[in-house]
């Protein structure tokens, strides 16, 4: 069974069907891209996966070590607990908190000490906070952010904010990482840098990655498989080379007039 299997997933808002009958399977360790024109329903799809929206119909199943879990309709924090973590299209860091706190907050769900230890600072509290801190700094090191651990997130340059968001998502120890336009607003240099980082963390954390992206160079370079959405429907899927040659995809991106000419 695939790690994530999405079956006939549909979401409608009143009369508008934002995601319609989408079926996809993600195998463990894959790096899969989701592309499509603006308003195709990509982010809605992520919001369905992560519990921000409840599906109108269809299912999202996650296979965690042989135990199959239905994610559709779960609360976002339960989805995160089940092993999905995400970044946001318009960065949603905890802006007025430090870089370190951003990561530590994401580690909260794995905290062992209980409330009394927090109130009365038993040794358990000190021990665990210490190891939590070391772990967070180790994670920040990967993104070359540990020297900025005490800066407020909002004071980081844009590219580093994107990186911090990925670090924060990784801190929840996910099996699947969902990246919503990670390269948006980056220059080619930063994008190249990001591409390397994504490849690296995928190896290092044995991650499965699903990413939405507009930057074709990034998608075509690193994704093993690509799904294409248009008007909420899946119009194509396959290897980058196949997608590049797909007539429907070209139509969706360039408009019908061009392809008919």
């Amino acid at each position: 069974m695939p790690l994530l299997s999405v079956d006939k997933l549909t979401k409608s808002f009143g009369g508008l069907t934002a995601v319609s009958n989408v079926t996809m399977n993600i195998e463990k360790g894959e790096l899969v891209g989701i592309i499509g024109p603006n308003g195709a329903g990509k982010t809605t799809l992520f919001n369905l996966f992560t519990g921000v929206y409840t599906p109108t119909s269809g299912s999202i199943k996650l296979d965690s070590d042989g135990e199959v879990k239905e994610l559709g309709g779960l609360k976002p924090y339960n989805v995160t607990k089940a092993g999905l973590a995400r970044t946001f299209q318009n960065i949603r860091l905890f802006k007025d908190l430090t870089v370190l706190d951003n990561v530590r907050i994401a580690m909260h769900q794995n905290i062992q000490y209980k409330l009394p230890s927090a109130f009365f600072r038993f040794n358990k509290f000190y021990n665990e906070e210490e190891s939590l801190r070391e772990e967070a700094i180790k994670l920040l090191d990967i993104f070359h952010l540990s020297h900025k651990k005490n800066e407020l997130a909002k004071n980081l340059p844009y590219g580093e904010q994107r990186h911090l968001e990925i670090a924060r998502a990784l801190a929840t120890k996910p099996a699947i990482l969902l990246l919503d336009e990670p390269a948006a607003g980056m220059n080619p240099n930063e994008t190249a840098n990001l591409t390397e980082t994504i490849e690296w963390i995928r190896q290092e954390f044995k991650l499965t990655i699903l990413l939405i992206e507009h930057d074709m160079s990034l998608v075509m370079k690193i994704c093993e498989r690509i799904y294409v959405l248009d008007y909420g429907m899946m119009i194509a899927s396959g290897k980058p080379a196949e997608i590049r040659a797909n007539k429907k995809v070209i139509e969706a991106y360039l408009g019908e007039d061009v392809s008919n000419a």
Partner: protein
Amino acid sequence: MEQFLQQVVNGISLGSIYALIALGYTMVYGIINLINFAHGDVYMIGAYIGFAAITYAKLGFFPALVITMILCAILGVVIERVAYKPLRNSTRIAVLITAIGVSLLLEYVMMFFVGAEVRSYPKVLSGEVFHLVGVVINIQQIYIVVTAIALMILLQFIVHKTKIGKAMRAVSVDQDAAQLMGIKVDSTISYTFAIGSAFAGAAGVLVGIYYNSIDPLMGIMPGLKAFIAAVFGGIGSIPGAMIGGLSIGIMETLVSGYGNSMYRDAAVFAFLIIILILKPTGLLGKNTREKV
């Protein structure tokens, strides 16, 4: 049955007053998303202006009402310009706290000048009473309901048929877009405050006549209840505020009439919490959700 009808009649006159105040809340909330806590106190000041106009200037009901509405409109605009406008881009909590501050300021400045004691309102209307199928209706109640209805019709006319009304509706939908279309957002907001405050002032005079007593803290409870009425009707919706006001008024008189009048206020607040939980958008409100 007669007692029930009597309570409903009392409820309608009380409810029309709540509706008049609720209109101001709903209009201001619709346009700048602010619970204008000071609105209940504009109503209190309206009651005092009416008191002064009738007692010292020896004016009749209608001239006193008109003068009160004009002065309250000016007060509303001043409050908006001085306290709320500098905070147009602040967090909503900051503006809400400011509104609470303005509310306290009006209450205690008034207390400083007129004292804390309760005053009885001068009699401007005759105490005539009508009997209709066993229900007692007095002339004050008729004045209250007729005035309230007339003002609401006037408001509907302003909002739907005039240029100002069109601008108000545009700003409440999208402030930035309205600005780009050449609508003067600042003056539109001022007009909204002026109209809302004038209505609150009118309600102040009516309540003074109805309950025959006024004091500097009289605005707190009716203010809160009118706000609840606005929430129940669907905040931002003008017909909603009217329906909400009447419903809260009738509910209150029924609770006092049949249950325990001591629990009247608690019932209204319990009602509010239930609405907020079951249908936070109210009867006629629009649903908005944050984009992720």
